[in-house]
Each structure stands twice: as C-alpha cells, then as structure tokens.
C-alpha cells in the first residue's frame, strides 16, 4: 500500500520534471524565434528569482494570492463546478476590504486588520454568489457567468478608484488613499514576503483536512461526484453548490485584499497580473490535490516572477508569460488521461 503510494508519487515527480523540460524547450524555441537568447533568459530568471534571496521571497509573495485563488477554484471544483471567476472575485475582495480599511480607522490594530480581511472575504463571496445562485437554481451555467463577471468587477473598482474614493493628492494617477497602518498586512524580513503567504498555507491545510477528513468534505465531494445520487441521499445539493461557490469566492477575495493590504497599500486598477486566471491554472494542474496546489502554486509564482524578469531583461511584454502558461496547459492537456480516468 505504502510502496505503491510512493511509486505513484515518484512517477508523478518524473512526469512533472518531464513536463517542465518540454515546456522550457518549447518556450526556449519560441524565445529564440523572437530573436532573444533563451539560455541567457533562463539563466537570468533563475539567478534573479531562485538564487537571490530577495527574489525568492518575491516568488513566495506571489504564491500568497495564487494559493488562495487556486483554493477558490478548487473548492467549487470538488463540488463539480467550474469557477473561472477568481479574477473578478479577487477584485471585489480588494474593493470591499478597501472600504473597511478606509472607513473603520481607529479600531485597535489587530481588530481592524481582521475586519479588513473579513470584508475582503465577504466581497469575494458575494460576487461569487451571483453565479452560485444562478447555477444552484439550475438557470445559467456557472462557467460563462463567472467569466462575464470578470469583466464587470474591474469596472466597479474603476468607478470607485476614479470617483468617490480617489486620493486627492495624486490627481494624475487614479488610486485610493493609503491604507492606515492598522489595516496593513506586515511584510516580513524586509522583503515582499508577507503574512498573506501564511494565510494561504493555513487555508491550504484547512482545505486538505476538511475536504478529506470531515463530513462537510465528504458531502461536498458527493455533490461533485454525482449530484443525482447526492440528492437521493437527501443532501441539500443546491445549498452545497451555493456554499462551494461562496467559499471559493471568499478565498479569492481574501487573496485580493491581502495583496492590496501587503503589497500595494492602496486600491488601484492594476493590482492583479491575472492572479485569478493563474489560480485556475494552478488548480487545473494540481487537479484540486492539496500537495499539488502547493507545488504548482510555487511553479506558477516562479513563472509569473520570471515574466517580470523577462520584461526587464529581454524587453518582452508581460503578456508573453501568458504564452508560457498556455504552453504548459497545452502540454499537460496533451498527455494521455491514463491517471485521471475517463472523466
């Protein structure tokens, strides 16, 4: 039993390594085709993001939102739902969290921060509740609504950032006033690494425990595995669908508010380089497995950081990193489904 488990883990590691090699090869060819030097590009990204301690802390800092958005996709995924809306939930979490940060000033240090984070979770959960209700009622498929809501969320944020919440002292650059000190997530060791990373780890552990070892997790997975069977068993399927969407949205919203409270310290429009979509990718590569989410979040965080490195050292637009992500997905999807069974 144990040895087969080890063998499977070893096999997965080999597959992961092979995938990485193939992806690096294909993306290297791609860079070469663009007239860049792939060897130097890889050396630079490795040197600046892994070997350099500040760079590594930066990668870990990017893991914070990715862990949370990946969980935001994973929980609905276990209930049989495809949540592609983490990007919008991220923005709405940041929005409601910012409201709490700017309007509840004067509360004691820890309490204010806790309320800010909680408000972020509420924001994400409410945003996810819209597709959740539509799906639970059996009216509209959640995939398309979550995608469409991704385009609405930045408009809502834009309204506040350009309008009522705009900081007067920075007239040329639309953003809100800075979060008061009591609403900030502390940065650690003088790097970009912040408490949100440990929040992400905490929720990952909680997810791993609850999904596998609790009655809630069993019910959620039953709904995801076979909704009709779950209904016959007397499980409240509609309520579980809504709960899974809102829980997922809450974590994606927490990712948003944590990112602002730690890194940006003000709400503005460009707080996310696509963390919601990257979280979807992380979850897909990990297939909602907790350990897989941890590994893939690191991998994608490294790639996202590399995107910024390439932007500076190779003068590539940041969006080029999307090509790399697409290549990874293409190659992973092209692998035979032997392990995943016939879904």
């Amino acid at each position, binding site marked *: 039993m144990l040895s087969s488990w080890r063998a499977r883990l070893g096999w997965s590691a080999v597959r992961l390594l092979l995938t990485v090699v193939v992806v690096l090869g294909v993306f290297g060819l791609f860079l070469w085709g663009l007239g860049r030097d792939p060897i130097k590009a890889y050396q630079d990204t490795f040197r600046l993001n892994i070997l350099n301690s500040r760079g590594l802390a930066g990668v870990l800092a990017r893991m914070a939102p990715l862990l949370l958005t990946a969980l935001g996709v994973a929980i609905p995924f276990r209930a049989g739902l495809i949540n592609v809306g983490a990007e919008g939930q991220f923005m709405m979490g940041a929005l409601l969290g910012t409201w709490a940060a700017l309007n509840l000033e004067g509360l004691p240090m820890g309490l204010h921060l806790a309320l800010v984070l909680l408000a972020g979770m509420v924001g994400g959960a409410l945003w996810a509740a819209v597709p959740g209700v539509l799906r639970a009622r059996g009216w*509209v498929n959640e995939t398309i609504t979550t*995608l469409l809501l991704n385009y609405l969320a930045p408009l809502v944020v834009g309204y506040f950032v350009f*309008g009522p919440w705009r900081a007067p002292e920075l007239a040329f650059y639309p953003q809100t006033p800075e979060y008061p000190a009591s609403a900030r997530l502390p940065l650690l060791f003088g790097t970009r690494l912040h408490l949100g990373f440990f929040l992400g780890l905490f929720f990952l552990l909680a997810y791993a425990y609850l999904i596998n070892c609790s009655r809630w997790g069993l019910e959620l997975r039953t709904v995801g595995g076979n909704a009709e069977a779950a209904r016959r068993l007397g499980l409240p399927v509609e309520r579980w669908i809504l709960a899974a969407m809102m829980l997922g949205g809450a974590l994606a919203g927490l990712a948003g508010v944590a990112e602002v409270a730690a890194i940006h310290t003000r709400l503005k429009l460009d707080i996310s380089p696509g963390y919601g979509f990257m979280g979807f990718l992380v979850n897909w590569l990990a297939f909602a497995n907790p350990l897989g989410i941890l590994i893939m979040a690191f991998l994608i965080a490294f790639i996202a950081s590399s995107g910024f490195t390439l932007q500076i050292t190779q003068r590539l*637009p940041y*969006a080029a990193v999307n090509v790399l992500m697409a290549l990874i997905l293409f190659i992973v*999807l092209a*692998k*035979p489904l032997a392990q995943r069974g016939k879904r």
Partner: protein
Amino acid sequence: MSWFLSWISGAILYAAPILFPTLGEVVEQRAGMVNLGLEGLMLLGASLGFAVSFGTKNPWLGVLAAAGAGLLANLIYAWLVVHRRAHQLAAGLALMFFGIGMSALIGKPYVRQMAPVFPKYALMGPQSLLFRYDLLVYVAFLLAPLFWFLLFRTRFGLRLRAVGENPAIAYAAGVSPSLIRYIAAALAGTLAAVGGAHLSLGITGTWSEGMTAGRGFIAIALVIFSRWNPLRAIAGALIFGGAVVLQLQLQARGIGVSPFFLDMLPYVLTVLVLLVWGRGVRHVAPASLGRVYFGTE
C-alpha cells in the same frame, strides 16, 4: 428620430465582429465542442490582422492572415480535444491564454498606430452617412443564413449535428467524428479571428492590448441565447451591438452617469439575456456537448 436611426446603424456595425465568432461557435458546439478560447482567437485575429494591414497597407491581406492564424490556432484546440481527449473547457482556456499572450507580442509595436482600414459602402445611397459598412459587415450577415442552410439543409450539416448529438452512432453510420470536429474547429477558428480582425480593421482602426474586452465570452453566451441556431444568432448579435452603441451614445451625450456604469451595460445585458432565454435549453443543446468521445475502444 435621427438618434434612433444612428443607433440602429451603429448596432449593425457593432453586431458584425461578434456575429462572426458566434456563428463559428454555433457550428463548433453543434459538433459537440465548447470552445472557451474564442476570446484568444479574436485577439489573435485583431492583432495579426492589424500588423499585416499596417505592414502591407492592405487590410484584406490582414484579414487573410488573421483567418489563417485563427484556423491554425484552433486546430491546436481540436487536436487536444479530439485526439488527446482533453477536457474541453480547460483546452479552451489554454487557447485563451495563448491568444492573450501572442496578441500582446504581435501587437506591441503597433500600439497607438493607425492601419489602413476597409473602404465602406453605403446601403442607402452615397449621400447618407448612416448605414455605411465595410464588406465584412455584409459578409457576416450573409454568413448567418448560409450557415443555417449548411447545418440544417445539407448532408454535411446533418452529419455534423449527428456527431454533436451522439458521436458513437454517427460513427456507426459511417461518419468520422474526428474529421467532422476538425472541420468544425477550423471553421470556428477562422471566423473568430476574422471577427477580431474586423474589430481592429473595420471599427477602431487601432490595436490595443485586450481590445476585444470579453467579446469572445459574450459570443458563447449568445450561442446559448441563439439556441444553436445561426439565424437567431443575428438577433443576439444585434442586441449586443445595440447595447454597445447605446452605451457609446450615452457617453457622448454626457448624461450624468459614470462611464464605468455605462461600460457595464453589454455584460449585464448578456447575463440578463442568459437568465431570461438561457434557461431550460438543455433539451435543445447538442447532447454530446462537452463530453469526451473515446471512440470505439
């Protein structure tokens, strides 16, 4: 009255770039494939079409290049889904990432440039400023009945729909589900990219990153609204075009509503359209939609 006419006129113009991908997706979904990658294909078409038009001073070459690129890119999707039996939604999103990234790379040198755009032909006499469209608008609206005919009145259409309903039975009847799906994907990829190119070459005349602003996803919503019928897709595209133009007109008039709220109009409308007309469509949808066909093994 003139306001109303210019609204209708604009709605038709803005309906065209979304009608192309919607029609493509109708065909693709009729063959049993959901493709969430339309957004990426449109961006690819918009950027490449613009770049080629800028370089050659010929917008038609731009459209041609966009069509070719869209076709090839969507064949990646088809290969993953048909050949490698990948999950359709994931494969589509991978294609979306691909299109976002590639279009940013292709379009980077062309931000804030103007490319030659299509000549316009007036529908109501040369004096009229209204109802003047480039050829692609006419093509879009002609393609809809053409695709209706193709799907519902030809042998090929029957086979395609059979594959979408039940590939195993289609296979037993001597149809190759793989071939049909590749053809459908090639058509859809071409149309989506042409839609994108029409946006950058027929409407804005410029390229900017992410300029399709979710039209690829709205097209998928319109497919559901149209109940997989190309003729109803015209109505869907006109509703969307009307919303976009209404929003532009209201902004131009400077009514006291934030432009951010006006920008929401098309998306909110799309969700509402789905809510009102998208319910209970399961019995209309192709039965094998989204399912992996494992062949006869």
